[in-house]
Every structure is written in C-alpha cells, then in structure tokens.
C-alpha cells in the first residue's frame, strides 16, 4: 500500500531496507545465538545518518519525525527485531532530552546521539515498579543549591531493572524520586553518562527472544549527577516519562509490524514452494485464508501506526489514546502473525535452522514492554470514556 511518504522518507526507507537485506539478514541468526550486541551494524547505521532522522537539524539530525523513525525501525525489524531494537531504543533514551530538555542539554547530548557515536537508554522500570511505574524507589537527593559550585548535585541511589541498551549506551535518561512525599509529582528526570562514579551495570539478562538486544540492571550507589543534568524541573519526572512513552510507542508498533512482515514473507515464500498432495500448499483454501488474514492484519497495523506517527509529528496535544492503540494492535497482531507463520511452515517453522521461530520468540516482548498491553487497554478505555463524557 502507498503511504504517500515524502522524498526523504522514501530515501530513508530504501536505505534501511538495503542495510537490512545486505548487512542484518545474513547475521541475524548468528547474533541470536551469540547474544552479542551488534556494534558493527550500529556503526553502519550511524555512518548512514540513520540515528538522527528524527532529531532536529540544528542538533545534527535530519529534521524528520517519528514517522521517519517508524519507517526505519520497521525495515530493520523485517530482518531482525533485536538488532533494530538497539537503534529504536536509543531514540527512546533520547526523547526525554528532545521533548523536555533545556537548550544546553539538547546542544550537548543530541548531536552525539544523532551521529550514532553514542547510544542512549531510558531507565524507568524497577523490580517493584513495572506497570505501576509510580512505585519506583530510586531516589535522587539534592545537595547544595544554586550558590554551590556547578549549581549543586543530585545523589542517585537505586536499581533500575531490564533496561534495554544498558551497558552499551553512553547516555542514560533516568527517572528517580526527588520528593517521595509528593507521590506522582515527586519524580524527576536526569541525564547520567556512562562512567559516572557510582553507576554500574548488572549481568546481561538471558531472554526468550530479542537476544541480541542488551538488557541489564543499572545500579546507582551514591552516584553523583550535576544539577545541570536535571531535565526540566523537579517533579516533572513522570510527565517527561509519559510524554516520552506516548511519542515512542509508535516505534514499538513499527518494530512489531516489521517483525510480523519479515516472518510473513518467509512463510509465504516457503508455502509457495512446499509441495504436498501434488500441489504447492498455497493451493489449499485453509492456507490461503491464513495468508489473507495475516496480510490484512499487518497492513491494518501498519496503517494505524503510520497514522499515529503522523499525528505525533503534527504536534497534536493529546496522543496517549492513539499511541496506545497503535502499540496494542500491532503487538497483538505481531504475536498472532508470527505464530501463524511458524504454523504455515509446519515442522520447518519450528526448527532453529529456519528464521521464523526467532520472529515468534522476538515478537512476544512487544506485548510486554513500554507498557503491557493490559495497561494499554486501561489507558485506551479511560480515554474513550473521558472523550465520550465530553461529548455529552
């Protein structure tokens, strides 16, 4: 389907597709086995200017939007969702700075991220704070004030869990409590650079899927962060986090769409050549109907994702419901489509020699991270009910 992408988006899409085909697809299975972080691929993406497509030109980016980022994420995910995640997650880590950061912070950090020289990571989740993000325990205690050298500092203590790109990234945006008494209004967002004293990383987690993505704990022990690294003001932490997640969710949807498309393409290719009962299995209506449903669902998810991305880029004020819908629909779709892709390939689909079982293992996470689909449903329902009230 033609989504009427502009010239730059088409350029970006074609380049990402080429990189996916020539550089990522040949090594995807190998990285899944070794669970190593695909630095060589990150380097290729960086040299192609793809890390900066959504970052404004004055900070070294290409001045595109979330739609551009979704297009790239989808293309890369068609080859490997895990490697694509290294790219997409860096955007997640950068968004708090881009959305809520000061001019100095943007000037300091965004060019490094746009060039791909440094990756970013977003730290919110903790062992006791998953869906209930407001239950975070990591604290940031202020020391000194505006008269102190450097305007004072914050001491961070706590452990963030299951952080994507942790250990590989150099720039971390961290949500921590500055005032527990204020509850939801007591959290703040900080920029912490790798190598800061008191910041350590846990072991790499062993996962069901997206194994080439690095997932680790980030442990803060009396970690000193300059006051200049506070994003926006104290108390704005959860607002910054919510805006970030609303903006990045179409990216998760795009990753899901890409993985579903990749699995579908493999399965369809196979089904055309697999001969049983004297004919290719695509001759059987049972298979044809599966193919029809899978194809339609992928296209619907893509259309919804791109529409929401365009909405985000247009500067719409309220995007929570739509953003949640895109993520919910695309991820549920991806899980179903990748499972069906394995089914279409029968025994071969189950074998690790063939790429499709990896897509199924990889797709599962999209239903869980950046807000589980149960939370997404809560958000969507709450918004729909509110909108309905307002209409009366």
């Amino acid at each position: 389907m033609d989504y009427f992408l502009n010239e730059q988006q088409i350029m970006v899409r074609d380049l990402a597709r080429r990189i996916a085909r020539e550089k990522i697809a040949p090594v995807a299975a190998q990285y899944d086995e070794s669970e190593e972080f695909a630095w060589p691929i990150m380097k290729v993406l960086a040299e192609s200017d793809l890390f900066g497509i959504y970052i404004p030109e004055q900070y070294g980016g290409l001045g595109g939007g979330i739609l551009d980022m979704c297009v790239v994420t989808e293309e890369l995910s068609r080859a490997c969702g895990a490697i694509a995640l290294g790219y997409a997650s860096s955007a997640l880590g950068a968004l708090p700075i881009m959305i809520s950061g000061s001019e100095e912070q943007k000037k300091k950090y965004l060019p490094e991220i746009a060039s791909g020289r440094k990756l970013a990571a977003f730290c919110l989740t903790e062992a006791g704070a998953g869906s209930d993000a407001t239950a975070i325990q990591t604290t940031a205690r202020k020391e000194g004030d505006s008269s102190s050298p450097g305007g004072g500092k914050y001491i961070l203590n706590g452990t963030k869990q299951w952080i994507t790109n942790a250990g590989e990234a150099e720039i971390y945006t961290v949500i921590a409590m500055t005032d527990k008494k204020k509850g939801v209004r007591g959290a703040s967002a900080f920029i912490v650079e790798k190598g800061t004293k008191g910041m350590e990383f846990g072991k790499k987690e062993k996962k069901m899927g997206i194994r080439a993505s690095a997932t680790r704990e980030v442990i803060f022990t009396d970690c000193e962060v300059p006051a200049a690294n506070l994003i926006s003001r104290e108390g704005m932490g959860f607002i910054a986090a919510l805006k970030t997640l609303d903006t990045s969710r179409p990216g998760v949807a795009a990753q899901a769409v890409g993985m579903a498309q990749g699995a579908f393409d493999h399965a369809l290719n196979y089904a055309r050549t697999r001969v049983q009962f004297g004919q290719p299995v695509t001759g059987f209506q049972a298979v044809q109907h599966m193919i029809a449903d899978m194809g339609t669902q992928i296209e619907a998810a893509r259309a919804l994702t791109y529409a929401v991305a365009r909405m985000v880029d247009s500067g719409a004020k309220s995007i929570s419901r739509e953003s949640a819908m895109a993520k919910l629909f695309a991820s549920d779709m991806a899980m179903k489509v990748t499972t069906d892709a394995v089914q279409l390939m029968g025994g071969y689909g189950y074998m690790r020699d063939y790429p499709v079982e990896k897509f199924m293992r990889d797709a599962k996470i999209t239903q869980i991270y950046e807000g589980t689909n149960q939370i997404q449903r809560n958000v969507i329902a709450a918004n729909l009910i509110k909108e309905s009230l307002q209409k009366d």
Partner: protein
Amino acid sequence: MASIRILLDKCVGCSLCVKACPFGAIHMSEGKAVIDMGKCTLCGSCVAACRFSAIELEKSAGPKKDLSAYKDVWVFCEQKKGVVQSISYELLGEGRKLADKLGVKLCAVLLGEGLDAVAESLGERGADKVYYVGHPALKAYQDDPYSEVLSRLVEEYKPEVLLCGATTIGRSLISRVAIKADAGLTADCTALDIDPKERLLLQTRPAFGGNIMATITAPNHRPQMATVRHKVMKEAPVEKGRKAEVVKKDYPAEAYASRTKLLEMVEELGATVNLSEADIIVAGGRGMGGKEGFALLEDLAKVLGGAVGASRSAVDADWISYAHQVGQTGKTVVPKIYFACGISGQIQHLIGMQSSKIIVAVNKDPEAPIFKVATYGIVGDVNEVVPAITREFKRVLNK
C-alpha cells in the same frame, strides 16, 4: 562514424532483439523495432539475435593499413624467481597451433636476469625462436621496465600475434603495451583460432559474466593481442633436445628505468588457498549452517587433496574468509571436480564455477537451481552426506 539501423522492410516485429540487448536500448513501436541511440553501445548482440537480418551495423571502413610487415606468433613467458609459470607453456601449446595455421614461427619472449638456460629450454616447449632480454631491472616484474622493453621488442620485430597469460602480471603489462603499440587487446579468451584468408586471430571470450560469448578480431591493427586464463589451454608437450634460436637483446639504460620501486615480495600461507590452481574444490554455501559445517568440508578437501571454496553467503556470514569466495564477486575457478555443498546455485555463484569439468551438488532442496547444472546431484542433508563421502574416499584412496 559507425552506425546501426533497423531495416524496416525486413523487421517482422518478433522482438528477439529487444530481449537480446544487454543495455535495454531496443523497444517495439507499432510492430517494428526501434533503437534508442542514447543507450546503444553498438555491441552487436541484436544483430546476432535477429533471425531476419533486419539489423545493419555499419562500421566506417577506414583506410586499410599495410600490415604485411607483421609476422610470427609471440608468447610472453611469465617467470617468477626464474621459474617459468605454467600458463606460459599453455600459451606455447596454443601458440604452436596458431603459428602452424598461419605458417609462421612461434616465438617466446622472456624478460629477467641470468635466465640464459631458461631461454634455451623454451625450445623444448615448441618455440622456434626465443627473444631474451636479461637485465637486473627485469629480475622481478615492474610495470615500467617490462612494458617499455616489451613495447620496444614489438616495435622492432613486429609480431602479428602476441599472447600473454591473464595473470596479475600479464594483465597489467599487456594493457599498457597495447596502448603504446596502438593495438587491439582481448582479455580472458577461452578459444583462439585463425581466419587464414585475412590472417586474423579469432578471439572468443565470455561477456556478461559468461552469459554470452563474443568472438572478436582486430582487423586493422597489429599485433593482435590476447590474454588467456590459466588452465584454459593445454600445455605444450616437452620435446627433449629440441632447440630454438635464442635472440639476446639489450637496450639503452633508459629503457629499464622504473618510476615505481619494488620493496619486498611476500608469500602468504593463506594464498596457498590458490583456488584458481586447484583441481578439486569443495565449496560450501548458506546450507552449511556455520563454521562447523565448513570443518566438514575441510575434512573432505584434505582427503581429496583439494581446496575449500565458498559462496558469497558463507563469506558474508563470516564462516570463512573472502580468499575462498567463488563467484561473480569472488574467484572464477575451473577445477576438474567442484563440490557444491549447501549452495543453491544462484547465477552469481555459477558464473564463478560453471566451467568446472564435473560438478557434484549436495543440497536438501530438490528445487535448488544448482541441480540444473550439476553432473551429479545428491538431494540430502550435507551434514550426513559430506562426512559419508569423506569416509568413502578415505577408504577408496587408502588414506
């Protein structure tokens, strides 16, 4: 100026020419072929494809030169460290046939230092005459002195045919000499013949990765130069005691000047992979699954005394180094036996090995294109079949 045109009264609109054109320069309009002069390169593929002689390729005649002064078939004999390379013997073998058809002498050209005995020995390989230039500057190959000396020899003695090996040295050397001599040069000929009436060397070579063959001549320029790849022609047999007339030439000092300096000659172990030389190659592709798969191929190669090759997919996946790559963007090989294991047989790979004498394909996919060109095809799991073949050959060869 040369030109091409469609003879509209002969064109029946069959559009064979459209398909034949490698540059997409022909399309059909109102039932007749139309050539887009912006895309046409006058290569002549359409002329050959047309069954109705409806395409006329006109070359301006040009003044016919008097080429009668040019005589004899020359073979440039490449030597390394004083040892004549086997390609030279293959060229002498082919050169003998050409010289006989033309009724002229077969002459070997040797450049080096202290190679008097070697020059003499070339008589035993069929050379009637040997032009030998010995000088310290020619001990090892350098572009400037070699091309200068060879050009001077050509200018002085005027051979009508000059053959050279399509080796790294040969190609660099002969391309420069062709420019200096204002001569036509055809690379990688797979067949050579003589048109006795016009005394033309008919040079046949593959183009478009081997999808077409072209026969080329240089009607109006001498010498007619051609390079031939290793192992395409048969070596000249040794006739012990046969003598050649050795002509030792010497040139003034400036002929031997070299702008470049050879600092070092390094032999590398990895280079002994020399796939181009191997008689037996055991190659693996995506179907080998990983480095462990290639270990199986190495076992088989060892037992058979062959080299290990690879398709581009295997090299891209880092299972083996690029030195082993066979195909359009790798090496072209002509072994006696080529084992293609877990290789699907895409054209990019076939281009590099389809001239192998025997192709044995092992692949789990019965539809793989490789089976269309394999002499012997085995549908099965490489992980089972390859070790079984290794065991069997070990037994048969008593290893």
